[in-house]
């Protein structure tokens, strides 16, 4: 891509209201339209994303090893893991639902963590990948991320509804907490990543001389709101 990015042109986009402003590195800018803080790139975006990603990867282990749900049917305990729940659904013959649960609670989190990892590694080691493919993958990751909450919701519905002592009691297991954390962490990781970092091939901020700025931007613009 040989067109200019907004950063190279000394501009900054307000991520909240999508208005465009002139950028000056010495001034903390605030959007004159909606009042949001302006950053050419979110501060510490990569560090935050790495931290949240690693946290979610660690939590993914207990989420899959520990029991996520315990079904006590006429006094007989039957604890199951995430995969166990999917296998149970297959045994019940409801393949489509088994597939949906499998996708939401196994494929989506794994794909999401690997996808973010791949993007971060490609930025770290400056691997040449198609910008368009990377951003498409990231958008897809952002879009599907919330669907892995499915298993948490199923457990919370079942645990709340099936609570007839002596006959059938369903309780949530500790993996539910871990898995909930995984989902939250991956969502936070995706939202803390600044996609504009993907366009940066040159690391330095383009500095413009002062007279390039509009007069209103030479002083902090806080008094506009």
């Amino acid at each position, binding site marked *: 891509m040989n*067109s200019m990015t907004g950063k190279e042109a000394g501009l900054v986009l307000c991520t909240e209201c999508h208005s465009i402003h002139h950028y000056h590195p010495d001034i903390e800018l605030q959007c004159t339209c909606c009042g949001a803080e302006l950053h050419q790139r979110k501060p510490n975006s990569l560090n935050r994303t790495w931290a949240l990603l690693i946290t979610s990867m660690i939590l993914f282990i207990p989420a899959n090893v520990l029991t996520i749900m315990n079904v006590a049917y006429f006094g007989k305990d039957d604890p199951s893991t995430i995969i166990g729940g999917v296998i149970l659904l297959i045994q019940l013959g409801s393949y489509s639902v088994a597939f*949906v649960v499998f996708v939401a609670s196994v494929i989506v989190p794994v794909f999401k963590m690997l996808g973010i990892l791949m993007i971060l590694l490609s930025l770290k080691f400056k691997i040449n990948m198609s*910008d368009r493919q990377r951003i498409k993958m990231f958008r897809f990751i952002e879009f599907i991320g*919330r669907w892995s909450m499915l298993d948490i919701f199923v457990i*919370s519905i079942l645990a709340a*509804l099936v609570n007839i002592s002596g006959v059938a009691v369903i309780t*949530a297991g500790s993996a539910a907490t871990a898995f909930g954390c995984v989902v939250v962490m991956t969502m936070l990781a995706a939202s803390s990543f600044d996609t504009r970092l993907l366009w940066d091939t040159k690391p330095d901020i383009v500095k413009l001389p002062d007279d390039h700025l509009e007069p209103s931007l030479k002083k902090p613009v806080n008094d506009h709101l």
Partner: protein
Amino acid sequence: MIQNQVIAEGSKLECPRCGHVLYKQRQDTISKTLAYTITALIFFYPAVTESIMTLNMAGFLQQQSLIGGARVLLQEHYYLVAVLTFLSSMLVPLLRLILLFIVTFSLSVNYFHKNLLWFFRLYHHIEEWGMLDVYMLGIIVSVVKLLSMAEIEPGFGLWAYAGLLIASILATTSINPHEVWELLLKRKNQQERCS
């Protein structure tokens, strides 16, 4: 970077760098959104407090509403699961509807307050944490899991929840954020000139 362009009604503008849709023209977005938002808010109370389904297991009947379910989880000390469920299936969707209602209502009656800008920003910030649709799929999966051991009867809460889901999807898809920002900024500038 591409320059701001005037485009014909009904057409859309795509970014040549990344293929993201930049702008799409639609009509009457504010009043449509307002109508859908009010519909969704009407559905909200029964959807949360009425029973979602009734379980008939060997003669034992049990029914549960959304809010009751969260309470049971709290009693069983699954705080994180309870809080997550409460936030993403009830509080965030309600908050988003209220914010959207305030913004679209103020715009349609020509009222402006600077907090509206903040409200609309918050509305976008919490977007992905509202998970009505995921919860609906969760209900369906739970029903399939339960069918093997009990009889299920849908309650009024389920229909209200479906209504809430449809109305809020319509509300969030009919709104055009660019247009709302443009209108809000126009009002803001008018107000500053007058005062």
